[in-house]
């Protein structure tokens, strides 16, 4: 009975409730924003669990028939989504709060007009000012580390800018640089030129699927920097000062030997009775008669300092931002002058009316550089490492100069020069400056149509002088320098871009349609001259006319490039959830061959914002997208022209012309997912597959043609990239906040076609179909007995110079190399190379390594305590990727490598490492010098404290301790595992500074 009653009651309740649910009512109201109280049009209102909904009108009003008890979801771009349960109300007014995580998400790269990030059909990574300011990078490319997946930033020289590339190789020779745009201005700058304190945000689009908008400029992707413009929603003039002072030092020194392998007399001097130094018979290494740490004396900690002032203001009708920064960068050595850089920027925006906007961006930069030679023997760092410690570079000769032939020089008999002498006696002046101006005018004709006109100029000028006085001493007689030498060169380049653009935008029912057409005209002009000569008539005269007439050389050049481009881009957005974009671009350039002046590029993309239709449990935003696009790379200036080389002795054929030269084209398919969940996490996953065709190869011709080479479109490369990046507000409590960013990528490339020309070698790297781009090619050592092949009688046949030796006589020594067992520990012990079966008497040349990493991970964390104390660190992990240590190889030849001392301790004679057919291999590429470049680096670490309002007119003061390039964990034995090969290069700096920032 009870049960029956219960059943009836529950049924009744159910009926009543369902009737209540089933009771539709009309709900209406107004939606406004909490930031300004103004109505929000086009707000999406969805009945939860259904696909029914509506949009607010221009005044923020809506009206919807809603079953009672439904939950309404109010969703609007840039605002935090709200859910409101509707029971019996008929009027529901909603105030939506601006969404902090997606404020300022209007992006301008890869799209015709500013577009909300949520409406992009391709992947775009963005790095904002707050993420940069914790450790203002000395090289702006470092701001992208750990924040953008799929980017490869390689700093292989301590004093140079890093090279930046996106995703996989776009050429059989390697990857290419992205296009750099600053505030909409197409520029020839490098990221390292830009003052990071000026940066408001950086947008990166990584492949042709996105960069198609830029046509033949952007096969390498695009990086756009947007600098501060003063419009920050706060009124009143804001002034900022920041100063940084600290020390730079060498992060890591290449290990060298502190003993030597030569015979000595009982008193410790070298035994020279046979006319020259001889190796010890048993391979012992002996201490030097005296010891000077020449490298240590040359390299020392040097100061770094920087001062910066900026002023900005934003008012009703205009805003501006101005900054000036000066940096002095010590060059880790007493003898090298510090480098200086000056950056000045002025941005001025005027908006006299709602319809009209004018933006002016100007910047000026000046650099003073110190030339330091590197990259092989006979350079600053090779001299510093090769010199043996019993020689003292600080010794003075009878003229009072640093000794070019210090005591002991004749014993060594190598041509190591004394860098102290060079920098005390030669003079140099390397300066460059760049001036960039851009004007951007925008006019809104009607609600639907607007026009945009821009004009920019990028002017660059560089100047270089070198002076060697009369009587300049050199280690080997050098007629070019010994009687004085003076050279001057000057180069300038100007790049001017004009564009006109028309935008159309209109809503047709559920379709939001926009179209843009734009025309661009580019003009690039470069010219330069150089003049040099030797034999100064007298010293101290800096006049090219004072050089001996017979020994003067002069040269000059000029180059022009004209390009015209146009594109038409259309976006169609259906119900704010399905986004389509189509783009066609036509590029004409004087750099393309005469018969092929015009080329076409394009893109198609589709994106679907899942969360507009479905209410997913944790996802605030989830979008899937696919994009397919093409972009190109222009040939170098010379490539199409037929040239004869001209000199005073006549003319002769050089490069055969190619009227059919076309740009290399990159076609890329990119699919990806963008999402935000739990209102605290945002992520992006991309998979990109790209094909490059018609890569330029300067092909060698037969000598009978009268020309040496011709540029031809011959190469094809395929690459894929998988990228994952995530930003997280891990914890956000009242006194503690933890933000983290992580990036992960796997990039692979392969050469797929060489149009029938045979594989060739480009430096250390092999260009061969079926192989990845960037494989090392050279002679390979045999490391296990299974690698040996024998003939019928058990004699080895595939080891070089070991014909007819029975397999039984070989074994693996304690260094992991196959040797003849009887020779171990004797001067005859040698490692064995694979033999080339097709070329009798030659060692096999084969692929011995691959410079591409298996994957890369970047991790950055910001911990904020009590809103004042902030700790930040950036970790960089590269797994895999070989590096060729040519520095070590040449150290072997000169018995200066720490390895060799180790080998002696392990019982091997010096010949094992230095013989031209053993490890050293006559300085030819060899497998022993391929090393694993895996590393984990603590790139950046900073701790800062902000004092808020310490005095009335000061907004805040921030004191930071900053460390850059702090620690490297790696098994790599050379200077640094970053980069693909090293050959006495400039070591990387570690840098500690204190920074003080005051904002008024």
């Amino acid at each position, binding site marked *: 009975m009870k049960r029956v009653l219960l059943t009836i009651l529950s049924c009744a309740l159910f009926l009543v409730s369902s009737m209540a649910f089933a009771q539709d009512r009309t709900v209406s109201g107004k939606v406004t924003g909490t930031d300004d109280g103004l109505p929000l049009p086009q707000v999406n209102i969805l009945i939860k669990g259904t696909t029914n909904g509506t949009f607010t009108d221009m005044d923020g009003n809506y009206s919807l028939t809603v079953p009672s008890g439904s939950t309404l979801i109010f969703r609007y771009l840039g605002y935090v989504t709200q859910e409101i349960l509707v029971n019996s109300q008929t009027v529901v007014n909603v105030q939506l709060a601006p969404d902090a995580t997606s404020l300022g998400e209007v992006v301008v790269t890869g799209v015709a007009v500013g577009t909300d990030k949520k409406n992009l059909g391709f992947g775009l990574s963005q790095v904002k000012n707050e993420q940069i300011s914790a450790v203002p990078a000395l090289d702006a490319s470092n701001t992208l580390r750990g924040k953008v997946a799929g980017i490869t930033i390689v700093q292989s020289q301590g004093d140079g800018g890093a090279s930046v590339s996106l995703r996989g190789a776009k050429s059989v020779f390697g990857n290419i640089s992205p296009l750099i745009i600053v505030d909409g201005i197409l520029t020839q700058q490098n990221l390292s030129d830009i003052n990071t304190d000026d940066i408001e945000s950086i947008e990166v689009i990584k492949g042709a699927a996105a960069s198609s908008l830029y046509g033949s400029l952007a096969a390498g992707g695009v990086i756009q920097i947007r600098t501060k413009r003063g419009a920050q929603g706060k009124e009143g003039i804001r002034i900022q000062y920041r100063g940084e002072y600290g020390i730079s030092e060498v992060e890591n020194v290449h290990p060298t030997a502190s003993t030597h392998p030569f015979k000595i007399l009982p008193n410790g001097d070298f035994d020279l009775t*046979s*006319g020259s130094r*001889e*190796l010890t018979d048993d391979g012992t290494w002996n201490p030097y008669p005296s010891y000077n740490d020449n490298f240590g004396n040359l390299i020392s900690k040097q100061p770094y300092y920087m001062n910066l002032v900026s002023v900005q203001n934003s008012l009703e009708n205009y805003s501006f931002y101005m900054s000036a920064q000066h940096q002095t960068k010590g060059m880790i050595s007493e003898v090298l002058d510090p480098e200086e850089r000056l950056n000045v920027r002025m941005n001025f925006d005027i908006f006299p009316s709602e319809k009209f906007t004018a933006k002016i961006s100007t910047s000026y930069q000046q650099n003073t550089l110190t030339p330091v030679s590197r990259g092989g023997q006979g350079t600053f760092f090779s001299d510093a490492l090769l010199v043996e410690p019993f020689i003292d570079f600080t010794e003075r000769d009878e003229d009072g100069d640093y000794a070019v*032939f210090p005591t002991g020089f*004749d014993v060594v*008999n190598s*041509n190591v020069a004394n860098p102290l002498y060079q920098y005390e006696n030669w003079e140099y002046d390397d300066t460059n400056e760049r001036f960039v101006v851009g004007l951007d005018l925008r006019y809104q004709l009607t609600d639907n149509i607007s026009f945009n006109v821009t004009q920019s100029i990028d002017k660059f000028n560089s100047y270089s002088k070198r002076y060697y006085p009369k009587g300049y001493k050199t280690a*080997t*007689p050098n*007629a070019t320098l010994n009687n004085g030498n003076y050279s001057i060169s000057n180069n300038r380049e100007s790049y001017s871009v004009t564009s006109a653009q028309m935008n159309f935008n209109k809503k*047709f029912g559920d379709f939001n349609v926009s*179209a843009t*057409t734009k*025309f661009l005209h580019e003009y690039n002009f470069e010219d330069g001259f150089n003049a040099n000569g030797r034999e100064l008539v007298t010293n101290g005269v800096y006049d090219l006319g004072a050089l001996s007439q017979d*020994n003067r*050389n002069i040269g000059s050049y*000029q*180059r*022009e490039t*004209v390009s*015209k481009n*146009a*594109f*038409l881009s259309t976006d169609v957005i259906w119900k704010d959830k399905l986004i389509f974009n189509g783009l066609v671009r036509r590029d*004409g350039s*004087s750099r393309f061959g*005469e018969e092929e*002046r015009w080329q076409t590029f394009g893109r198609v993309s589709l994106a679907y914002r899942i969360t507009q239709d479905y209410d997913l449990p944790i996802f605030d935003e989830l979008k899937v997208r696919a994009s397919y696009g093409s972009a190109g790379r222009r040939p170098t200036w010379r490539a199409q*022209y*037929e*040239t*004869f080389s*001209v*000199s*005073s*002795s*006549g*003319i*002769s*054929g050089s490069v055969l012309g190619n009227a059919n030269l076309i740009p290399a084209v990159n076609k890329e398919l990119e699919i990806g997912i963008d999402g935000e969940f739990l209102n605290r996490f945002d992520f992006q996953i991309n998979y990109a597959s790209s094909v490059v065709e018609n890569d330029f190869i300067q*092909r*060698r011709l*037969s*000598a*009978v*043609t009268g020309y040496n080479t011709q540029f031809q479109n011959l190469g094809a490369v395929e690459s894929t990239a998988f990228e994952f990046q995530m930003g997280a507000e891990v914890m956000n409590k009242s006194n503690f906040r933890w933000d983290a960013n992580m990036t992960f990528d796997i990039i692979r490339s392969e050469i797929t076609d060489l149009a029938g020309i*045979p594989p*060739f*070698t480009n430096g250390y790297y092999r260009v061969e179909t079926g192989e990845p781009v960037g494989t090392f090619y050279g002679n390979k050592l045999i490391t296990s007995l299974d690698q040996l092949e024998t003939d019928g009688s058990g004699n080895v046949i595939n080891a070089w110079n070991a014909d007819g030796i029975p397999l039984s006589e070989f074994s693996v020594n304690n260094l992991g190399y196959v040797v003849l067992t009887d020779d171990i520990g004797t*001067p005859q012990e040698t490692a064995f190379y694979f033999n080339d079966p097709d*070329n*009798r*008497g*030659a060692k096999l040349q084969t692929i011995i390594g691959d410079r591409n990493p298996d994957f890369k991970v970047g991790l950055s964390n910001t911990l904020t305590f009590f809103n004042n104390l902030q700790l930040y660190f950036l970790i960089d992990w590269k797994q895999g990727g070989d590096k060729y240590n040519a520095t070590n190889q040449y150290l072997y030849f000169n018995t200066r490598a720490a390895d060799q001392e180790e080998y002696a301790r392990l019982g091997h004679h*010096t010949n094992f490492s230095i013989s*031209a057919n053993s490890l050293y291999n*006559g*300085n*030819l590429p060899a497998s022993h010098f391929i090393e694993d470049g895996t590393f984990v680096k603590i790139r950046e670490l900073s701790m800062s404290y902000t004092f808020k309002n310490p005095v009335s007119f000061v907004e805040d003061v921030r004191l930071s301790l900053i460390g850059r390039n702090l620690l490297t964990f790696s098994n790599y034995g050379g200077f640094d595992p970053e980069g693909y090969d090293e050959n006495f290069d400039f070591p990387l700096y570690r840098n500690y500074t204190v920074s003080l920032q005051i904002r008024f």
Partner: protein
Amino acid sequence: MKNFKLLLASMLIMILAFTSCEDLEVENLNEPDRARALSDPGDLISLMKSGTLDSYWGITTSWGTHFHLMADQITTTNKSRQFWDFAEEPRLRLQNDPNYGGLGALTSPWSNLNSAVVSSNAVLSYINDGNTFVDENDNDITKQMEAGALFAKGFAQGYLGVIFDKAYIVDFDSDLGNLELQPYTALIDEGIANMQAGLAAANAAPNFKYDLMVNVDMDITEFTKYANSMLARIASQEARTSAEAATLDWNQILTWANNGFTEDFYIETSPGNWFNSTIDWAGYVLNSGAGYLPTDLKVAHLADPVNIPQVYPATGVLDQADSPDARFEQYFTYTTDFGYLRPERNRGIFSNWYNSRFMTNNTMSEAGDQNPQFLLAEIQMLKAEANMRLGNNVAAAAAINNSPRTSVGGLDPVLPTDDLTYILHYEYSIELDLAAGSTTQWAFMRRNDLLQEGTPFMFPIPATELEATGLELYSFGGIGQEGGAVGNGWKN
């Protein structure tokens, strides 16, 4: 919607209109192209001068040192440019590979000599079309240009035949796409024919002047001697072995030699344009006092066979040679410093001497430096060898005695019954060291079976050329291998 379509259409039309304007023609103003360079006779003269220069460079570039290493005129254990591979004993096979660091020894003559042919053909083609050349006074110099072009072409083809086993014969009307490689004998025949045609054209030219080479200005008499000397030299260098040498027309060679130079022929350096770079490298002295590429022990041994061995001793330093020949100490400088020679590589090829005869200020590249191109002594040796091979030892000995061997060296006169081949080798090694172009000693030794066993006695076509034309790679040299000299050579 209609308005939108209209707008879209007009945008498209604008784009099409914009993109069809074509002023993307930008010229390269830095370097001329074929149309410019080959249409103007002035430019063609310029091209021919460059082509003539190429033919001279063919045997005087810095890569000429490799021939001297093979001929045991100089020695080293330095692996820069793979020098050591060419000097090492026992001899190694040549590595004809596109990546080989020593490939310049092949590509340098190959590209310079073929380039000379291309330039000559451009001029001959222009003349064949009925065009004329005039000098600055409007005199017709067409015949003179034709002579210069034919001579440079023949010179280059001759040397291609001397150095390589095969090469192309290219005329101005050849179909470049269908060229066949010709054996060296054909190259030398063609080269000789063209040099003779050049000489004939020179004789037919009014007021002939040979001034296509920098710092050279010859009239018809001087040019005739020059041409005859080159004909004698190149023809004598055809043979790869002594068996082959016996088949050469030594009568003809003797005739050419008899009409050759009557005094030493030097060319003055033109800074920035040309100097003898082989000598510049081979004669370079390090600050320690040692030669960068020391004179081979063979030369000292020939000068003093009593005290100087054929192989450098394993310990100790050799004393200065005690030679009856006064030229030895004049031309070569002694030093106890071993320079860049490394004992752990091969002490047996060490040396204590370097050639100091021609260099001033440790270079040949300065204005005023005199580069020996063809010494009178070489004419005398060619006459001597020709006579010897024709059975006329008396005349041969007389020719040798008429050379600096007696007048400068102070040695006793040679008798017809002496080992004339040995004495000729002596003279080529000491008197003509570095003074006869890069191939002369190597060619002399190979046609007299004096090269060490395994020395490559000719070069294959360079690997880079083989690759560019899709041919298979091949090589020469090495003991018991194709293209390698047989027998102990001069160490017998």
